[in-house]
């Protein structure tokens, strides 16, 4: 009986990862014009995937969150000693579920908010392929498998930005692609170097973690550099962040949400899962660099936000700042810092994802995101205005909401970094990062003040709406007033889970900390052993 349950739950990860592809397959047989059926299949597939994810969550043994569960080790590419190894532990479980939930909710949101280029068949297919890549990255326990999944997301996102994006989409999509490709090329070389330095026996994480620590100090530093390039570009860390504002601004709402909520986490996750445990000495050498760049990112991102005139671009820059906090947490190499980092990843995914949803909806209503043209949202659309306020508060790290638990412990952890890292340096970083939170409050509140408070601007406050059905909607230059309405039911469905989770995680962070604490402590312990 026990074996039966075991074997039943072992393939659950594979189902969760590859189920979306079945949906893509099914969609291929539906004519392009049957949009309702296509959207239905897409949402049903994503929903089924999420259901599998929730079952995984239920079957997950929370007392053993430090161990890999639902572990599968099957033959894949024997010649290069790479195997299909998947497993889930406390570090990845949150992100794994988040990726499924975000994809599902984004698809629900797309039900009647398709970007202008249309063609839901291609759009939904790409989102499902993205989902496979994201979920796969979080469960992969083999370096080559990880690399493949890590790269699978590249093309769908490229097309999402390139086809359904804004005016400058060509430039933005190519920039996104080339930056990421650049990073991954070096990452791959680093992976291979790691493989050969550990005796060319296996690409499995467990093996590499065990053997990686015995690599020469200098070699570790070099291999870490290669991985750093790959992951830091994905995060993105200053100074590799320049693709992000462009990609975010140009991407369709759905693309921005997935990009912010999940894709950026692939980079930070890579640091925690691969770079740190496999190359302990490299990590200690690089930690100050990561810390400094992270804090520069925090300040730079915040200042960048203050200078923005476009709401979406502002949110994009705030991502740079927030990912800075995550990286600062990681760079301290303390259990607290890494815990905060992982919490921050999930929290940022929820909050910034939500902010991008809002930006998309505002754009949909006002046909502009220029901050100075927007005002009085609270008067015109009180519910949307309040949700924006709520998310801005969550984003600036208000205690009681999820954002706080990513930022505050990260800053705190910098007070006493681990493994002999310079206390002076990290305490300085701590102070600067703390200033960053003030700036964050500044730009977010200022944004909120400018867009939500005040009177409704002249431009959008025209006379009462046109009579319905008078054909005004067909005219692209018609009065904006007709589009301005409060939150729609579809939006409520897509957003409520985000909002609830932000509150729940804010009030009861133990929910997530409890799951990941054990594996993080194990990770840091192993680092300690390796560093003697």
């Amino acid at each position, binding site marked *: 009986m026990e074996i039966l349950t075991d074997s039943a739950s072992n393939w659950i990860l594979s189902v969760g990862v590859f189920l979306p592809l079945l949906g893509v397959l099914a969609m291929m047989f539906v004519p392009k014009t049957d949009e309702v059926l296509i959207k239905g299949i897409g949402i049903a597939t994503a929903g089924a995937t999420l259901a599998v994810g929730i079952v995984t969550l239920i079957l997950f043994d929370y007392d053993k969150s430090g161990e890999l569960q639902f572990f599968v080790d099957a033959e894949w590419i024997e010649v290069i000693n790479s195997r299909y190894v998947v497993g889930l532990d406390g570090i990845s479980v949150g992100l794994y579920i988040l990726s499924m939930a975000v994809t599902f909710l984004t698809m629900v949101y797309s039900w009647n908010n398709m970007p202008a280029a249309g063609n839901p068949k*291609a759009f939904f297919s790409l989102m499902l392929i993205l989902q496979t890549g994201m979920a796969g990255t979080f469960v992969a326990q083999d370096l080559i498998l990880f690399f493949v999944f890590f790269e699978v997301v590249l093309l769908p996102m490229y097309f999402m930005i390139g086809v359904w994006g804004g005016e400058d989409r060509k430039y933005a999509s190519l920039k996104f692609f080339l930056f990421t490709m650049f990073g991954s*090329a070096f990452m791959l070389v680093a992976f291979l170097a790691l493989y050969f330095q550990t005796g060319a026996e296996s690409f499995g994480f467990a093996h590499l973690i065990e053997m990686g620590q015995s690599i020469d100090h200098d070699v570790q530093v070099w291999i870490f550099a290669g991985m750093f390039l790959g992951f830091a570009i994905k995060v993105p860390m200053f100074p590799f962040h320049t693709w992000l504002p462009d990609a975010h601004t140009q991407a369709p709402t759905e693309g921005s949400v997935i990009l912010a909520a999940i894709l950026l986490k692939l980079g930070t996750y890579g640091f925690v899962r691969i770079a740190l445990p496999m190359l302990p000495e490299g990590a200690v050498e690089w930690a100050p660099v990561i810390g400094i760049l992270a804090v520069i990112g925090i300040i730079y991102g915040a200042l960048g936000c203050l200078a923005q005139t476009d709401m979406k671009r502002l949110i994009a820059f705030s991502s740079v700042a927030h990912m800075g906090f995550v990286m600062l947490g990681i760079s301290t190499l303390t259990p607290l810092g890494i815990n905060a980092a992982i919490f921050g990843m999930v929290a940022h995914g929820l909050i910034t994802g939500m902010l991008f949803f809002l930006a998309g909806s505002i754009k949909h209503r006002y046909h502009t995101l220029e901050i100075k043209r927007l005002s009085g949202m609270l008067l015109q659309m009180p519910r949307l205005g309040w949700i924006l306020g709520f998310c801005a508060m969550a984003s600036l790290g208000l205690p009681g909401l999820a954002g706080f638990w990513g930022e505050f412990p990260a800053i705190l952890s910098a007070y006493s970094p681990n493994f002999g890292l310079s206390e002076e340096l990290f305490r300085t970083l701590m102070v600067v990062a703390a200033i960053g939170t003030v700036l964050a409050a500044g730009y977010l509140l200022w944004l909120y003040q400018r867009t939500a408070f005040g009177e409704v601007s002249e431009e959008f406050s025209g006379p009462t709406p046109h009579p319905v059905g008078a054909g005004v909607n067909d005219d692209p230059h018609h009065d904006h007033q007709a589009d301005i309405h409060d939150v729609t039911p579809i939006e409520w469905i897509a957003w409520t889970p985000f909002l609830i989770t932000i509150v729940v995680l804010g009030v009861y962070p133990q929910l997530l900390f409890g799951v990941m604490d054990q594996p993080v402590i194990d990770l840091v312990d192993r680092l300690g052993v390796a560093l003697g």
Partner: protein
Amino acid sequence: MLASLLAQADWVAPTIDWHALAPELVLVVGINVILGVDLLIDESKKWAIATMTGFVMLGALVPVVTLAVVGDDSRSMFGGRYVVDEYALILKALFLLTAYIIILMSQTELEEGGYYQGEFYVLMVASVLGMVMMSSARDLVSIFVALELLSIPAYMLAAWNKRDVKSNEAGVKYYLLGVFASAILLYGMSLLFGTANSTLLTDIGASLVDGELVGLQVVGVVFVICGFAFKISAVPFHSWAPDTYEGAPTPVTAFLSVASKAAGFVALATIIFVAFPGASDVYEPLVWVLAALTMTIGNVLALRQTNIVRLLAYSSISQSGFILMPLAFAGNERAAGSALNAVVVYLLIYALTNLGAFATVIAVSRKTRSGEISSLGGLFGYAPGLAVAMTIFFASLAGVPPLGGWFAKFNSFRAVLDAETTAAYVLATIAAVNTVIAAGYYMRVLRVIWVEEAPDGDVSPVRIPTPIVTALGITAVGTIVLGVLPGLVARFGDLQDLTGAFAP
């Protein structure tokens, strides 16, 4: 009389392993049958020749398969000059399958263009025969004969559109530079023969010893490698490729850039592993430089192309650099095994992907009647299936997982890094940068397909002939399957499969 002469010369008829020679024999018979049928058949029924040629290719594939199933040890003939081992078999299969796909791609093109169909296919089979022989040739003379047998028909095929100036230019350029390269190669071979007193690769291998090489041997090695560098369009011997590729009929271009190039690599790999293991001091730096130059210059020039076929020409040059890269460490005792494996696996995956890319270009240009990249605009709108296929092939060429190309590139990197020398890390870094540059132009093409509008506003759907659909199907499925399950081909090209190879 003859008998007494033979007795005097003390000549013994070699034992011939008919089973081992069966693929070649099928092709030889095929050439004659096609030629005969072409003479007798009515003009309106010439289409049947393409089908027949296809069957000849598949027919030749049968003994290859049976040999692979039966053969546990390699079959050596003519005193080791002609060897059928696993290495030869997988490459024969590659050439025959490639030829089959190219026939599918040429069929409608030739029928509609009113070309000389019979002659076209006869020449193509002759060229394929040369390639099939090349994979077994283990002797300077048989390598040279195979090389000429595969090249000379190809010169004519390149000039097939004889009323088109560009096609004539393509043929002449290819011919002149090809002959020049053959001369260099032959000169190098004669020097090697002079010092080793044998044309057998294994004998030459025994005569070359690192550190004790004499000047003549060094020159011989360098000339032989440069001769093949032309065939594989390695920089700086690449200048014929873009013009020839652009001018030749597109199926012929596919043939040149896949099959003919693969044959060059096969010969190069055989010679390096069997004859030159003792000359690694000479060829390793040479190949290192060739590989670095080839990938970099091919890529940089590809960035500037506006014609899709020229773009594919330069891309295929830069891909050559990636295939060449592991050979720069073939003498390294750690990397030797993975180097041969990397070359063979790369050739297999690259063949599928690049053929697919050309098949999409042929399919699209049937409608657009243009080779400009900008003419591909709007493809995603009016021919989404074709757009997706093109995306698969170009992304695979760029090396994006989970499409075949990633494993080919990965394997190449692996072979190089296996050497664990500074030179290896430097070359791997150059290759990594090149991967990004290459992604730049591949993605630009995809962007045009997906994002831009149709330039002439013509969005009528494309009608793709069945043979091309078949070719697209085979290559697309192959590219995806090999990307997800690279283990299917990853074991080919093992060092032990190549009889007489240098074993560290």
